[in-house]
């Protein structure tokens, strides 16, 4: 520490350090922007292809958070983002609904549920598979404990209820869409 701590020195060193660092970060930002955007787009595409049958193009509606998937001219379905409050925080799902109003599949985008309990909503096959082809006009959309047809995850009724609520919200969005 040979340099004296007078005003000129301090301003010069701190200023130059900040300038240099912002330069480096600006460069890094420009270089990584493309791969970051690509990774984000890939993630959404993957999520949509999990919850809908084969499609060739998607269009995002920012106001209502849903994707319209089409294959050529034909409407494949809607992938609707739906966020509710789960047991440990926000629980975000993407729900694929085909034009006939049947749930094609669901997938969790992000969650903060308890590991080993509520977090099983991303791994429990029995729970996840019951959403494939879930027809809300035949089945009652609430967990069995509340008199519905949804099998809850063992010891995670609150998470299961939240999940069910999220699917219901998505179906409500779908209903307003199909009535337009």
């Amino acid at each position, binding site marked *: 520490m*040979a340099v004296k701590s007078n005003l000129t020195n301090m301003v010069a060193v701190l200023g130059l350090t900040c300038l240099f660092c912002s330069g480096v970060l600006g460069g890094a930002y420009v270089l990584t922007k493309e791969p970051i955007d690509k990774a984000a787009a890939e993630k959404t595409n993957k999520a949509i292809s999990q919850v809908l049958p084969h499609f060739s193009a998607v269009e995002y509606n920012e106001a209502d958070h849903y994707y319209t998937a089409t294959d050529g001219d034909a409407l494949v379905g809607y992938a609707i983002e739906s966020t509710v409050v789960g047991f440990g925080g926000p629980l975000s799902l993407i729900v694929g609904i085909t034009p006939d109003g049947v749930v094609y599949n669901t997938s969790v985008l992000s969650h903060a549920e308890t590991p*080993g309990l509520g977090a099983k909503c991303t791994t429990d096959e029995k729970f996840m598979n019951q959403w494939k082809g879930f027809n809300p006009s035949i089945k009652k959309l609430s967990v069995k404990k509340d008199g519905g047809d949804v099998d809850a995850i063992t010891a995670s009724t609150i998470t299961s209820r939240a999940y069910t609520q999220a699917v219901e919200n998505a179906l409500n969005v779908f209903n307003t869409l199909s009535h337009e």
Partner: protein
Amino acid sequence: MSKLKMITDGLVKNNPTFVLLLGMCPTLATTTSAINGLSMGLATLFVLVLSNMAISAIAPVVPDKVHIPVYIVVIATFVTLLQLLMQAYTPAMYETLGLFIPLIVVNCIVLGRAEAFANKHGVVESACDGLGVGLGFTCSLTVLGLVREILGSGSVFGYNFIGGNDGMLAFVMAPGAFLCLGYLMVLFNKYLKKN
């Protein structure tokens, strides 16, 4: 002091987790599995080596009174760089660790090594010191993560060995982190005393 000794000191005698007890926040929070602990350790190692090198190089021209702000700017730059790179090339890992990457800036290990070592030594020595302490941190986090994963989820590096059954959940959550850390610390220090 030889370069090799600098590295092994960071691993054992000055082990940041079990001996110096620095950086407890990421230690407790990210070690829910061995792979998470390992990646958090490697992320810190990356920042530690680079910031140690940069700081030892600029230390002679930094006036005393502004050295902390200058160091923090340097460290924050490396952390942000790491964050951008992880987001771009390892998005899955970024999702698990995302919240804790910015926290490396305030990890006392990084600023601690800058203050205690890098500003008094050359670039090569500082790199060795960063490597040693970083490896020490990485090993401790991996071991802690491994123990918690075995007890809490019954798996090793994501490979489940008890088949479908759950482990002891508490170990994946915060109380288990404190318990495991405590016991590992006892074992580690007992071993140190013996030698």
